[in-house]
């Protein structure tokens, strides 16, 4: 890893940026140097601190320590308005466009050219936007409603909007997550033109191929710190992957297999319809079996059907075809609650959206989904005494740091909230656990604790379907790894031989097939 010499002028220079949130250090002493006229990639795993860093640069919060320089001058951003004023623009992963307005209206929204007596000068705007479109060599019907545009086009509108506000430094937050490969190429063609005109692009991603193919320089972030600054010439795919996950990839060798012979989860030929009518299937021909004592890992870039798979197994979305057996019983048509009482447990993707009642005390949270258990209820009533005792047991056993079980869940740090959710889901004597990102956004200590619990439960015969974006976690815990791409299972890998590099090529859909 050679450190590039800073020949060109620095468009953005962050030094010593530290940002902490209660209980979590999101960024620690981060340095970032972006030369003007380049596409600069910031890569790192989910939760590595990329988003926090970009929010700092876009003025969405003030860093605790460190300085920001733009074009050599030191600046302080109290709000995004300050950042926009010096020419920084952000294109969000989730588009912020008004569907019912036209392209033109969306581009000028919030920055309308206003003439005398507050009249909109639409013709001026139209002329300026046309000039911008020409320089980018993109073409739009400016009067078409945004609702009629495809995803790739909407993204181009977002970029136009940012440029129209006079941005010279563009931040793109995982812009390719929502695009199909062809659109990805178009996007980069646009970005190339932008930098050739002297603008600067900061590109946040964890897709290594795109980064290596299209970017000029790369900064790698791991666990909130900058670990490397390199270029595509100096590093290959494997090297970059190791930088991302840390070179101390856990050695899976020497593990004893505990895989039993009883299937606890059988998914056969499952298909689930796409989000809108006429869209392609969100899940297609999914078949696999998890045995007792087995951890089956699901690798894949987010949004390739993992969420739909969990929803289908839980019975929360209608299936187009296929069957689901849990603990040997055909529960294809059963309601969610029956599946849960048959031995299914679920650590959801997002603990705030699906895992916790934030305003309710911990003891109510440990009862969520378990209020029908005979130990926690009597007749139609809930048994608060038993629920509190159970809550204290989980707090003790899973090391949840809290003053008591009466504290509302929002008062806990993210890691402790997650431990509570994991504790609850593993305390129902499940036979099969769907664990979606079980350690996302938690500190290293809580991560180790959760891994230990998963391992010992597996040793005791629990089957686990582990969905994770953390390759270290997948390789370290899984007995088999299935790769999901575009709603299908495209490969089955042996974690003993899989490397982040191999996983990466499969996850991006580059290679499809069984690589044992």
């Amino acid at each position, binding site marked *: 890893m050679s450190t590039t010499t800073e020949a060109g002028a620095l468009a953005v220079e962050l030094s010593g940026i530290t940002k902490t949130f209660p209980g979590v250090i999101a960024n620690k002493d981060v340095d970032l140097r972006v030369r003007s006229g380049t596409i600069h990639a910031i890569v790192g795993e989910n939760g590595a601190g990329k988003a926090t860093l970009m929010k700092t640069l876009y003025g969405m919060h003030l860093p605790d320590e460190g300085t920001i320089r733009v074009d050599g001058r030191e600046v302080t951003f109290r709000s995004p308005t300050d950042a926009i004023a010096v020419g920084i623009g952000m294109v969000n992963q989730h588009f912020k466009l008004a569907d019912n307005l036209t392209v033109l209206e969306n581009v000028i929204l919030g920055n309308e050219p206003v003439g005398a007596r507050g009249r909109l000068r639409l013709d001026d705007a139209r002329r300026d936007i046309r000039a911008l479109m020409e320089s980018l060599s993109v073409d739009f019907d400016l009067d078409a409603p945004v609702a009629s545009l495809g995803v790739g086009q909407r993204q181009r509108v977002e970029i136009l909007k940012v440029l129209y506000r006079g941005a010279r430094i563009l931040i793109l937050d995982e812009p390719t997550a929502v695009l199909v490969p062809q659109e990805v190429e178009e996007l980069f063609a646009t970005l190339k033109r932008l930098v050739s005109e002297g603008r600067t692009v900061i590109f946040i991603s964890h897709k290594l191929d795109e980064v290596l193919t299209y970017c000029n320089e790369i900064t790698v972030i791991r666990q909130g710190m900058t670990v490397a600054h390199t270029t595509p010439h100096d590093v290959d795919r494997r090297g970059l992957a190791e930088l991302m996950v840390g070179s101390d990839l856990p050695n899976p060798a020497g593990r004893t297999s505990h895989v039993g012979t009883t299937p606890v989860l059988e998914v056969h030929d499952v298909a689930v319809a796409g989000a809108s009518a006429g869209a392609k299937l969100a899940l297609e021909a999914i078949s696999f079996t998890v045995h007792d004592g087995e951890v089956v890992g699901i690798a894949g870039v987010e949004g390739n059907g993992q969420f739909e798979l969990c929803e289908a197994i839980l019975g*929360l979305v209608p299936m187009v075809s296929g069957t689901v057996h849990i603990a040997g019983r055909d529960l294809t048509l059963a309601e969610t609650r029956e599946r*849960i009482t048959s031995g299914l447990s679920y650590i959801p993707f997002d603990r705030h959206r699906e895992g916790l009642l934030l305003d309710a005390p911990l003891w109510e949270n440990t009862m*969520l989904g378990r209020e029908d258990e005979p130990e926690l209820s009597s007749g139609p009533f809930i048994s608060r005494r038993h629920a509190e005792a159970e809550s204290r047991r989980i707090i003790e056993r899973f090391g949840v740091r809290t003053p008591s079980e009466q504290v509302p869940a929002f*008062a806990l740090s993210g890691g402790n909230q997650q431990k509570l959710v994991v504790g609850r889901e593993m305390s129902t004597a499940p036979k099969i656990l769907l664990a979606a990102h079980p350690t996302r956004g938690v500190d290293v200590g809580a991560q180790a604790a959760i891994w230990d619990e998963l391992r010992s439960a597996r040793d005791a015969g629990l089957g686990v379907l582990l969905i994770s974006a953390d390759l270290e976690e997948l390789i370290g815990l899984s007995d088999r790894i299935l790769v999901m791409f575009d709603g299908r299972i495209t490969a089955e890998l042996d974690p003993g031989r899989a490397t982040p590099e191999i996983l990466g090529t499969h996850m991006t859909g580059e290679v499809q097939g069984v690589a044992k």
Partner: protein
Amino acid sequence: MKRQQLQRAAVTAASSVLAVFVALLISAVILLITGKDPVKAFTTLFGAAGDTRVIQGSLNRATPLMISAAAVAIGFKMNLFNIGVEGQMRVALLATAVVGAAVDLPAPLHIALCLVVAMASGAAWSGIAGWLKVKRGVNEVISTIMLNFIALSLVAWAFDDFFRVESPNESVLVKTKELPKSAWFPDLVDRRLNGMLLVAIAVLILFWVIVWKTRFGFRLRASGGNPGAARVTGVHPQRMILISMLLSGALAGLVGMRALLGDVHAYQNNLAEQQGFNGIAVALLGRNHPLGIFFSAILFGFLGEASGKLQLEDIPKEIATIMSGIIVLAVVIINEAVKRWDDRRIQRKAATELEKVAA
């Protein structure tokens, strides 16, 4: 251990009391501006609290408010804002007046039948809004407002065209056929305080037990608190919406029963008017908790009852209405501010307690 909860309850109660005081303060300013003596106004108003007849009247007025606030609160627990209590009450009033007058049963049975009819018809009307929300995604605020208008007109038309009777010896007021004596809800204090108060209190107790003590109530609160989390545990959000809308409407049906069964004994226009709307304010001040609702309903009932005394002192009695309005506004603002402050307090406290353990 339970101390934290008690503290939270105390903070909640204190914020409502604070809101009432702020409202008094603002009302005093208004009185001063209009050239009236606020001290005299308040001593007259609250001096009435010692009068037994005023207390009885206040409780009588509080009775429907307790029930309508409970109806609103059960919706709030599920994040539903049922503004349609008024309309549901109105539909139930006419339905009960008609059915109750058409049958003759022994007293307890007759009253029970009337209450059941009231609840069923109220639930049927609110069920429309629930069904629209579940099946068509219609916002319940919009649909219940619209259903209020429809109920008002529908009931007025049905009453006028089918059910009104003009008795030659009675006053000019038109009513439906009078209910037989067996359907009259007995008074606790003759002509002053109706026994429906006991029903209202029973409703509040039942509300507390169901929402806070049962598995169903837990699921209801979970769905209201975080629909996503409830959903993945197998609680159908749609089903909970429909159920809580039906429950809310059933209670709304009971709101007018003090006026119908305990007072007028027949349907007439303007019967129990506004009592459905006023429940929203009472539920807000009472923070959707039965105990809070109980006291808020009595406060609002008292303000209504004692305001008459103001006129004797040449102070417009509307000041009591203005005060009720300001109380509601103050509650909304102060509650939100206090909640934010309290949330931060709890978070800080949890953090410091943990540090103490670690040290």
